[in-house]
């Protein structure tokens, strides 16, 4: 796939006018992230077929204060939701009288590194499932409980808790399972499709303009290794599909339903774009 140039127009403008030096990009910081002393991989060589040489965690693009908040789990406000998730894990719900722990025991053991490999192919459903959908499947089929409503606080908390069991583990998807490759292809198409009155694709900002500022916002590669993410501007956890929908909405487009096939495909593709980055859930962003 052809890489979106920053702005063909800008380059042309420079060439034609010989305009004085215009240094637009601001580099991501040259720092290393340790969470409670455990090193995170925030830079990794990109997988084959990736438009970048190196994949970069969004952490590298944030302000010093935001970065520092993520380095200490006691400071990280997202950890409150993770603790709530731990309680939900042990709470009996549904007609079968089970909790997650009834079958999966200690999540630190049974869920260790699991979230780093989601979305994962589910032959039974004939599609990839992310952690949220996997939780729902378990609740409905094994617990006799109802699926969570999208972005219900319990859904975000339990998802964050499960993904947190992979803290530090590099993201890696198995695209050879089932039809994962087809979903990846479809997600890639969505990633490069411009939407809305503003006529922008994911790639417009997170590939073409990565490293630049839109207003006060330092554009990252749009990696998803830290979701659900704690955001200061909303003061709570933000799920990945909420973020997808927000970005698409900002192009002044109608946006797909959470966990729709379109957004699941996008999740598969975008997660792959962060291959090798540590799971940082719950990451802290502005």
């Amino acid at each position, binding site marked *: 796939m052809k890489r*979106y*140039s*920053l*702005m*063909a*127009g*800008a380059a*042309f*403008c*420079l060439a*034609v*006018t010989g*305009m004085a030096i*215009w240094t*637009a*990009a*601001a580099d991501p910081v040259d720092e290393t992230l340790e969470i409670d002393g455990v090193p995170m991989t925030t830079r990794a060589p990109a997988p084959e077929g990736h438009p970048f040489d190196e994949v970069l965690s969004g952490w590298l693009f944030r302000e010093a204060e935001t970065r520092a908040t993520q380095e200490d789990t006691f400071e990280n406000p997202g950890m409150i939701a993770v603790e709530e998730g731990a309680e939900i894990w042990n709470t009996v719900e549904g007609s079968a009288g089970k909790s997650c722990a009834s079958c999966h025991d200690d999540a630190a053991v049974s869920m260790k590194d699991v979230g780093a490999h989601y979305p994962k192919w589910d032959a039974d459903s004939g599609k990839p499932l992310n952690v949220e959908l996997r939780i729902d499947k378990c609740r409905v089929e094994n617990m006799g409980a109802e699926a969570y409503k999208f972005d219900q606080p319990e859904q975000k908390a339990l998802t964050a808790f499960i993904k947190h069991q992979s803290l530090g583990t590099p993201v890696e998807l198995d695209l050879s399972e089932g039809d994962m490759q087809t979903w990846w292809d479809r997600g890639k198409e969505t990633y490069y*499709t*411009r*939407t*809305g*009155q*503003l*006529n*922008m*694709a994911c790639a*417009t*900002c997170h590939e*073409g*303009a990565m490293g*630049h*500022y*839109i*207003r*006060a916002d330092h*554009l990252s590669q749009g990696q998803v290794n830290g979701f659900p993410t704690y955001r200061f501007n909303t003061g709570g956890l933000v799920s990945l599909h909420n973020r997808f929908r927000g970005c698409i*909405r900002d*192009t*002044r*487009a*109608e*946006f797909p339903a959470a966990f729709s096939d379109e957004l699941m495909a996008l999740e598969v593709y975008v997660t792959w774009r962060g291959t090798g980055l540590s799971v940082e859930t719950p990451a802290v962003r502005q």
Partner: protein
Amino acid sequence: MRLTVPAIAAAFVMTGWVGAHAAEVAPGDVQIEDMAVEASLTGTPGNPEEGAKTFANRSLGNCLACHAVEALAKEQFHGNVAPPLDGVADRWSQAELRAIVVDAKKVFSDESMMPGFYSLDVGKNVREDLVGKTILTAQQVEDVVAFLTTLKE
């Protein structure tokens, strides 16, 4: 209905406005030739003060999202996705600036990130209430162009 004096006055104002509106070039009819749109979209000269407001307004031009401009230094957070516009009027003619604001993708390249502010050649799944609508009105484009032509060094 009996026409009152204010109603008649209003009718005159309306006629004036309708007159200008009738001369307005529809988005699909704007001719971009040699990277330029020579004719005004409305026939009404642009107002640079109004243009500066439209330029900065986050729900209108929001041009500062990507471009920095010293003339608007009082506004916070100028982006740097695209070139600064200081001295832009020394580099481009009024007709070229109009073309760039109307549809930069037709002037530069389809890969330009800049939205077409007076174009219906837009992305997929446009929000329902915005279908068939441009980001700026023809007069707002003229106002922004008038503001841009003041940016000389």
